[in-house]
């Protein structure tokens, strides 16, 4: 499993939590870092504009787009989720545009940033949340959240209330994103990461390894 390292901060805790959840983790600092992995995790904290600039400088934006276009497993966390959408109202930055909609400031929030543990209310079942209670608490720290348009409502996996309601998890095919920090959300957070590792392993078992080359070989180990 590759954690995309574009100098955006909290990847240490994500790498450590993924390791605790059973993954073998490599840090992808260059496009070649995606070779031979089953899944990609995009972390990130802070603002979208500088993050996109760093992704481009490290030449990681194009391989990320190719990865999602191929329908391979990816988990975006916090800003890493927001970057999957088309753009951010935070600084007007254009982002990857894999998913429809923009990132907007939380509406009617009593206090911002939204920092702390809050309930993640699922709209539909998904293996990412297997074994995790409905309305379980996860740790958030952000002021903005992705807002898919009504016609893309099917993306929405879960919502959370802080003043108004916002989208706290999305999924489409092998692509998933969470606005909270599973790597800092105790037992349920580790469970979610382990679920993602298992999903990636299952997808990897049907896949043949790096890229789309049909090389015969054993299934990749989970992560």
């Amino acid at each position, binding site marked *: 499993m590759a954690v995309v390292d574009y100098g955006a901060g909290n990847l240490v805790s994500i790498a450590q939590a993924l390791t605790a959840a059973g993954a073998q983790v490599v840090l992808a600092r260059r496009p070649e870092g995606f070779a031979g992995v089953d899944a990609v995790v995009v972390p990130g904290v802070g603002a979208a504009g500088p993050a996109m600039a760093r992704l481009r400088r490290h030449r990681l934006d194009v391989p990320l787009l190719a990865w999602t276009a191929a329908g391979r497993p990816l988990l975006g966390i916090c800003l890493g989720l927001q970057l999957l959408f088309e753009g951010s109202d935070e600084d007007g930055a254009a982002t990857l545009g894999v998913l429809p909609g923009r990132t907007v400031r939380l509406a009617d929030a009593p*206090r911002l940033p939204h920092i702390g*543990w809050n309930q993640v209310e699922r709209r539909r079942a998904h293996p990412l949340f297997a074994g995790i209670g409905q309305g379980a608490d996860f740790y958030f720290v952000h002021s903005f959240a992705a807002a898919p348009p009504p016609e893309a409502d099917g993306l929405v996996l879960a919502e959370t209330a*802080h003043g108004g309601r916002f989208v706290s998890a999305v999924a489409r095919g092998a692509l998933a994103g969470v606005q909270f920090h599973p790597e*800092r959300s105790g037992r349920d957070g580790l469970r979610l990461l382990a679920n993602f590792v298992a999903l990636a392993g299952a997808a990897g078992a049907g896949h043949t390894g790096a890229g789309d080359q049909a090389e015969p070989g054993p299934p990749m180990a989970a992560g």
Partner: protein
Amino acid sequence: MLRVRIIPCLDVARGRVVKGTRFVDLTDEGDPPELAERYAAEGADEIVFLDIDAAPDGRATLLDVVQRTARRVFVPLTVGGGVRSVAEMRDVLRAGADKVSFNTAAVREPDLIRRCARRFGSQAVVVAIDARRRAGPADPGAGWEVVVKGGREPTGLDAIAWAARAVGAGAGELLVTSIDRDGTGEGFDTLLLRAISDRVPVPVIASGGAAGPGDFVAAVRDGGASAVLAASIFHRRRHAIGDVKAAMAAAGIPVRAAAGSVG
């Protein structure tokens, strides 16, 4: 609904958790990662390490402690004490901390808040404000003065004005300690907390003076705090985190269940 956080604070020196009075007569209280893990298991919503090490190699020791903790404790970790530059903050975050708390360094150089927030995001920048009442209860309108160096050095700054300025510079949270109440067990200074939480849009963490679960309730209900930090009340096992959360829940304050929160 957003939960009110309970945050145990651990003083760290020479790679160990220590306890003392005004940084003297330090006694060894244990291994930081081990204690952090225990608190996380008991339901701590976040952990704060306060670095009080004055030794020349103290920084390297602290980074090692942070690294060992982040490997086994999966709740947010904040490190405060002695961080004076963007590079030092980067090192602490790379070791596995989620946030850095600035106190004296922010007062001396407010632009440090702006630079660190720009580089790492406001959510990673906590400004700690130690405040002392300017006058006794006879004159509640006199306000509070910012003090540094554990309360030994007055700065002349008004605490409420400084709070607003720190947030304007990019602080994502404020950790507000009443130096008058710290270590006294007389309860939090809820007037100070209320004055600051009404003035700024960011979360305010209450600190200084907790003796019992009722004080935590007051910090939230009367002071408007989003989180409550305490040290000795937890270390000396006078009250478990679960007791505090139970009292808060009974008072109608939303808290995260302590069970199922093993870090």
